[in-house]
């Protein structure tokens, strides 16, 4: 086989099954690609020996007719998922060389189903960022380039920037990611890949480093809708170790890919047509509407009146939860420690040295909005507005809408250093279309919609009812069929 890294996950699965390819060959091809692509800085830790050992077992299983659902498929793991015996950093200096003695439930599910793990993928520090520029291990570079400006390094989105860049650059067949305000869907949109954040509770959060626990959810980034469906089926499922994980059967999502969307009612929320929306994003959205209409869906305008409050609400709730979750990094049980005269100074110096500026800023905002005298004015008010945001969606779905179509991001990807340097809020605005979905706990998928005039990918977002990921896979596949195929630039990032 010519270059197996160009196969989709589903194609690779079928090639292994029909023995056109061995799992060791497939793993080695990806290990070689990773070795030549370090310019992208996708991986924090590479584990080629782990992947090859897993591939050998996969070949033995395939030979004896005992293949599991993901047998021999090489994946990347976002370095927010704890990996037993492999350094796990969360993109932060504060965890130092923390090496978990346990495996996160979601990655354990992937291993149970036979996947091979190529290593740990770079991310924004503690998943706080929209460009992968806050990582303590340096920014990730996207394989995409602006047509007229090929020398600028383009960001892969964030926080799952290592995941999106590695999948786009064909360094792995798929990758795990997490999404608290858009961290799966925005990087997918920026890199022309597919990313789904399932319903809150669909995947276990156990063993994934916590950011904002009422919003965090795991999901895959892949190159096709079918691949996302295959990965999510393995990742999802009830876990007694996470009380918010839902005890409900996991459907065969792959079966939903390719099903008819005829008669489906798609809501188009007028409030997402924000002030200053670029003509290109508006045109992309119109195309998405036309593609679904051509496929037989019915389009209806809906209203989600509290949309504009979602991002401000997020920037109270997420930092509040983060300030609480990140209190555990105190230099006592794991990670780095700075010496101090007493325990309080030890805490303060350790946390000042270990956390980067974005994380420190969010912890401080979270601490402030939870502090005495401000708790009701900020935190409780934000929780009430969150109820209203969720109610908007409840009413839209109650009116008979099956899913909601929006752009995934307000712009294409940008170059390193272009956003947020003077004002952190400028970077936050990236998540304006995705964050509502986390607020309401709903599933959302980003799917490529073509290229912008600057040569960078654009993505559409579909939002579904709680636990109705199947409808999203069906609709996303319809968009995937209709949208123009996008082609990655020549692999400029490969050495040798």
């Amino acid at each position: 086989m010519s270059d197996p890294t160009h196969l989709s996950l589903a194609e690779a699965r079928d090639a292994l099954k029909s023995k056109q390819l061995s799992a060791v060959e497939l793993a080695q091809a990806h290990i070689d690609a990773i070795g030549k692509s370090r310019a992208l800085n996708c991986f924090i830790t590479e584990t080629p020996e782990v992947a090859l050992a897993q591939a050998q077992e996969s070949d033995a299983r395939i030979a004896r007719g005992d293949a599991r659902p993901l047998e021999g498929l090489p994946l990347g793991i976002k370095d927010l998922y704890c990996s037993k015996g492999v350094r796990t950093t969360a993109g932060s200096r504060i965890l130092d060389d923390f090496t978990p003695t346990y495996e996160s439930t979601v990655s354990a599910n992937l291993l149970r189903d036979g996947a091979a793990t190529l290593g740990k993928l770079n991310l924004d520090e503690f998943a706080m960022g929209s460009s992968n520029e806050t990582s303590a291990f340096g920014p990730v570079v996207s394989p995409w380039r602006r047509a007229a400006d090929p020398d600028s390094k383009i960001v892969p989105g964030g926080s799952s920037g290592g995941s999106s860049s590695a999948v786009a650059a064909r360094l792995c067949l798929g990758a795990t990611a997490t999404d608290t305000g858009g961290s799966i869907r925005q990087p997918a949109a920026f890199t022309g890949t597919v990313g789904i954040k399932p319903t809150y509770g669909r995947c276990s959060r156990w063993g994934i480093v916590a950011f904002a626990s009422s919003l965090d959810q795991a999901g895959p980034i892949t190159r096709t809708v079918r691949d996302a469906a295959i990965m999510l089926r393995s990742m999802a499922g009830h876990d007694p170790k996470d009380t918010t994980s839902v005890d409900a059967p996991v459907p065969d999502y792959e079966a939903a890919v390719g099903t008819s969307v005829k008669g489906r009612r798609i809501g188009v929320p007028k409030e997402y047509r924000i002030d200053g929306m670029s003509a290109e994003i508006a045109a992309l959205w119109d195309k998405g509407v036309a593609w679904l209409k051509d496929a037989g869906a019915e389009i209806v305008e809906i209203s989600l009146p509290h949309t504009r409050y979602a991002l401000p609400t997020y920037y109270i709730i997420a930092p509040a939860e983060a300030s609480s979750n990140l209190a555990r990094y105190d230099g006592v049980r794991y990670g780095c420690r700075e010496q101090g005269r007493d325990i309080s100074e030890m805490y303060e110096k350790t946390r000042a040295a270990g956390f980067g500026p974005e994380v420190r800023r969010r912890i401080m905002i979270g601490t402030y909005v939870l502090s005495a005298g401000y708790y009701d004015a900020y935190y409780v008010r934000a929780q009430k507005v969150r109820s209203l945001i969720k109610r908007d969606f409840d009413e839209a779905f109650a009116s008979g809408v099956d899913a909601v179509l929006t752009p995934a991001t307000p712009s294409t990807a940008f170059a390193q250093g272009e956003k947020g340097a003077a004002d952190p809020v400028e970077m936050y605005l990236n998540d304006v279309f995705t964050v509502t979905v986390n607020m309401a706990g709903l599933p959302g998928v980003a799917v490529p919609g073509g290229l912008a005039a600057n040569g960078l990918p654009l993505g559409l977002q579909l939002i579904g009812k709680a636990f109705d990921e199947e409808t999203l896979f069906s609709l996303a596949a319809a968009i995937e069929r209709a949208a123009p195929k996008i082609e990655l630039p020549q692999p400029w990032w490969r050495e040798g």
Partner: protein
Amino acid sequence: MSVDSATVRRIAHLSRIAIEDSEVERLRGELNAILAFVETLSEVDVEGVEPLTSALPMQMKKRADVVTDGGIADEILANAPLREDHYFVVPKVIE
């Protein structure tokens, strides 16, 4: 609402994050930019609205109150920056 430099220092201390004097002004500006951004929530009418505390309406699952884990002290201490036998070691807490 906006914060002054004394408040920045107080929040940093509550957050257990050491800050240099030279950082205070910059942090004050950044925190005030974020607080100005979230200020828009004050215009929302939330009269009679319950705060949302769980993303989806679900009953908190409870398990039997029995020991399900344990005997892994070595694993728990494996990543400690400083340990002695089965103890985490910290600077002196009481003078």
